[in-house]
């Protein structure tokens, strides 16, 4: 029990005194996971939209593949990205392995199915008659997209929350493709892992608390936006 109290005490100290190293790690975490979530949203929501309004053979297969992707283990994605980015791999010439960009790529791939899958379901829930009505008034597919997005604002923000949660809490892929390099690719989750293995439990607890706090604050902001009446 002592350890937990000591950990809490140290954590509070580190947070109040704004430890520069922890600050750097935290900012990198938010940056990396924020960018990946953003990329996944930019690709995933339109993907879900087009998937839900179009009809083609194999549509159900695509949806079930996306749904499978939602529970794809991050380590597997990490391994795939690592192999691709190896110097001897197909994209090795880009020299991206062990950079923050590599983590962004891996996290985007992890978050994309979550965003795409959940937004497909949200779009599909919209009354077909509403869509027909909007289209009969002469709206283009793009205009329809923006009108529908407003209709399903609540589940879309829930989707973003789920996506960001998937990115910031992920550790296996970040470790593999980022390499946990100090001041460069060390994010909150991989730093926690390292400090635990080194036996610096206070530091590990401090990092965990910061991770929880950050996730809470970001989700709180998103939830406030979500619950605000238009």
């Amino acid at each position, binding site marked *: 029990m002592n350890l937990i109290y000591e950990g809490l005490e140290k954590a509070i100290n580190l947070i109040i005194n704004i430890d520069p190293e922890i600050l750097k790690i935290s900012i990198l975490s938010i940056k990396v996971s924020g960018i990946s979530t953003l990329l996944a949203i930019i690709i995933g929501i339109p993907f879900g939209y087009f998937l839900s309004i179009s009809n083609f053979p194999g549509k159900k297969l695509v949806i079930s593949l996306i749904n499978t992707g939602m529970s794809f283990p991050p380590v597997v994605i990490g391994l795939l990205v690592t192999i691709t980015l190896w110097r001897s791999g197909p994209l090795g*010439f880009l*020299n991206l392995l062990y950079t923050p960009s590599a983590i962004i790529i891996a996290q985007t791939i992890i978050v994309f199915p979550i965003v795409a899958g959940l937004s497909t379901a949200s779009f599909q829930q919209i009354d077909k008659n509403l869509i027909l009505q909007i289209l009969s008034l002469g709206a283009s597919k793009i205009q329809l997209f923006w009108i529908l997005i407003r209709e399903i604002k609540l589940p879309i923000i829930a989707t973003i929350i789920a996506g960001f949660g998937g990115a910031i809490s992920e550790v296996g892929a970040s470790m593999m493709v980022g390499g*946990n390099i100090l001041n460069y690719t060390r994010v909150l989750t991989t730093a926690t892992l390292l400090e635990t*293995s080194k036996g610096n439990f206070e530091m590990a607890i401090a990092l965990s608390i910061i991770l929880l706090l950050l996730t809470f604050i970001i989700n709180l902001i998103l939830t406030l936006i979500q619950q605000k009446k238009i």
Partner: protein
Amino acid sequence: MLKFIFSLLILFLLNIYAKDFNTIILATTTSVYDTGLLDVIIPIFEEKSGFKVKTIATGTGQALKMASRGEVDIILVHEPQQEEKFINEGYGINRKPIMYNNFVIVGPENDIADVKNATNPIDAFKRIAKAKTFFISRGDESGTHIKEKKLWKDAGITPDKEYYIESGTGMATTLQIANQKNAYTLCDISTFFALEKTISLKILFQDEKNLLNIYHIIEVNPKRFSTVNNLGARVLSDFLISNECQKIIKEFGIKKFGKSLFIPYNK
């Protein structure tokens, strides 16, 4: 899909700066990394040379494998036999000793296997097997793991699965597991000193001659892999054997742990 590819392309373009020859990728063992030695040396090297070093902590086996695919530029490892094989196969050049320490057998203070009174490392392993007590193995083809397997082989013992636990993790994590389970393990003395304050395990057996552990730096052969940054590797290698760096190695740990963790090769 087009958008997906497009976004990735933008991402790559933004990161072309990552593709420069100022970056050196160093693969090293967890036993060096977990002590924090590189956190001291690398920033000094980066400042002096202008190179940026990406340190990847892994086992010696994995480091050698990555190097023999040209994925890294230079390795700092500790398994003589595999290192020699690596050089003979033409993957590595300029192997130089940097520093050394020794392996120790650590275990619970009450020492039910009576390892304390062992006459040599093989005898110590025999005692552990005989006492039917837990032994934690790295199980990751690292230098330490290979040494441990060799000791079991020399002792003519196949460890009893019931008492033999493969952790599959780095040295520090393995020590933590051994600590929680009150088990024995083979550890390099540097990692043990770095973690001594957080665990209750004790050094029970030391043998500086038979358990000597030398760390070598090896450059990956640029003739084999055109993508390797050999200039950077050479500069780093030269820095590690320089008097300045050897002095840092000698003094590392005195302030934080009260003793040197590694002995520099050129004293």
